[in-house]
């Protein structure tokens, strides 16, 4: 069965400093991985997705994530945080057919950005 663990429930950074949100996954297959963002009182929006092409994936708003199979990780990064990045972030794993292809969400990481 697939699963995903977001290693931090809260991450606090200062504006202009780098952001790192950590995600580890478990899958018996070569999964697809996603990051979604949820701003306060807004719907969930796709940031980026990995589907076995390039291991470094670029998303919207300057975010990117690197797929590391040996570490079963898919950490989300951004070089310089902006106040508007404050939101809840979810890592999602989805197995291919043969496995459980239903998207499974992590528990979320709340990103706090200080001025």
């Amino acid at each position, binding site marked *: 069965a697939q699963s995903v663990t977001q290693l931090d429930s809260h991450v606090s950074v200062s504006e202009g400093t780098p952001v790192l949100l950590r995600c580890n996954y478990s899958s018996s297959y070569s999964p697809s991985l996603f990051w979604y963002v949820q701003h306060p009182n807004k719907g969930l929006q796709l940031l980026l997705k990995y*589907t076995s092409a390039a291991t470094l994936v670029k998303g919207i708003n300057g975010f990117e994530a690197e797929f590391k199979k040996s570490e079963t990780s898919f950490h989300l990064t951004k070089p310089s945080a902006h106040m508007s990045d404050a939101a809840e972030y979810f890592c999602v794993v*989805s197995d291919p057919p043969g496995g459980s292809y239903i*998207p499974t969400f992590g528990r979320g990481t709340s990103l706090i950005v200080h001025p």
Partner: protein
Amino acid sequence: DVKVTQSSRYLVKRTGEKVFLECVQDMDHENMFWYRQDPGLGLRLIYFSYDVKMKEKGDIPEGYSVSREKKERFSLILESASTNQTSMYLCASSLVQLNEKLFFGSGTQLSVL
């Protein structure tokens, strides 16, 4: 743009009431999902459907049922609402192709008193 519309943004119901949450998508997506979102628990899948009249249980189906009579509409039913079903309910849809992204509605905040 794909639009996923949930019928109510806020809903207040009494314990024991039968509750219907409606979700409509306008992009002919095959897959539709119902999740509940609780603080610290992320999104947990209640039910999903990959075709009309087809449904499969997710991780937490107890106390819920679903109906998909038309491709664009996916309804979540709480047969007898209980206080532990107070939550944010999110509907999503996607194409049937593998690993397409999910399109979410804006959610229904349900309070059961």
